[in-house]
């Protein structure tokens, strides 16, 4: 690359490296702290956290009521909190209403319970389509919502982050919370899938 390369032609990898160097030199970031954050969200925080919340709500009616009333506190009680989880609202699927979550403007997502968002959640096609034609977008994602059921789309573009409490599948009466957590998927907690029976 020549020195005359226009700034907008520089690769993001190179610009990222340059930015990190500058910020370290200016003592604005500590690479060790950065590494810790990256490792946390790459390896530790993911949808199993949310699955544990859902499984407890399915097996403990008092916890379920608390979760729907004050999602932030009930989730914190499970040990899950931190950035992007400060104002949690939990919405419950029912036979009448199907809930689905989006961030129309960017990528807001409840990190403490779901980890970082998948690429489809950030994609312009999902962010625009789920608002305009939710039934069609859900069908394209493999979820058929019957015509008789309302679809409620929750836009995370304020400070609120949403978690969907899926319906417990039939035939799971004998499973304990740990086994139930194993059934709950990320997609079901965003509202683009249902939880399947084992």
């Amino acid at each position, binding site marked *: *690359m020549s*020195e005359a*390369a226009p*700034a907008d032609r*520089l*690769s*993001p*990898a*190179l*610009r*990222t*490296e*340059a*930015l*990190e*160097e*500058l*910020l370290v030199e*200016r003592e*604005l*970031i*500590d690479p060790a*702290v*950065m590494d810790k*954050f*990256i490792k*946390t*969200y*790459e*390896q*530790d*925080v*993911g*949808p*199993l*956290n949310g*699955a544990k919340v859902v499984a407890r709500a399915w097996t403990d009616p008092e916890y379920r009521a608390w979760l729907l009333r004050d999602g932030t506190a009930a989730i914190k009680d499970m*040990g*899950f*909190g*931190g*950035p992007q989880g400060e104002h949690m609202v939990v919405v419950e699927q029912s036979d009448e209403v199907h809930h689905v979550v989006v961030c129309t*403007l*960017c*990528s807001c997502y409840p990190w403490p319970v779901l980890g*970082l968002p*998948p*690429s489809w959640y*950030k*994609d*312009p*096609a999902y962010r*625009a*389509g789920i608002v305009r034609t939710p039934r069609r977008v859900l069908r394209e994602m493999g979820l058929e919502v019957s015509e008789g059921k309302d679809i409620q789309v929750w836009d995370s573009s304020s*400070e609120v982050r949403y978690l969907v409490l899926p319906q417990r599948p039939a035939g799971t009466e004998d499973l304990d919370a740990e086994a139930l*957590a*194993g059934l*709950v*998927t*990320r997609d079901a907690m965003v509202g683009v899938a249902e939880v399947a029976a084992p």
Partner: protein
Amino acid sequence: MTTVIAPLDVDGPAAPPRSNGELVFAAPWESRAFGMAVSLADAGAFTWDAFRDRLVARIAAWEAEHGVGAPGAPDFRYYTCWLDALEDVLVDGGSLSGDDVAARSIELAARPAGHDHRDDEHGHGHGH
């Protein structure tokens, strides 16, 4: 740092995040850009809302330029918007001037070939 992380059975039957699909970051630079923004917000260099406002603006600009779902539109480059937004919010706060990153990038690009990281974004960098 305020993050509360519960101990997880990473090797258990529902070990996350991988059990639900995909790699969190598509290239090493994406994870560095992510880590910088989270660290800086955690340290108070800017508020998350200020960063988010810039991210929203960069994403909107990308969509205005390329269209949403238009035939032949390029793949959405989320972390490029993220990186642009991070520079924007640092320039807003006076931590960077507008051409600092470009100037340093050009210096780095002029390194001998064996130290060139430009291929990192494709996940098959070499010669490190």
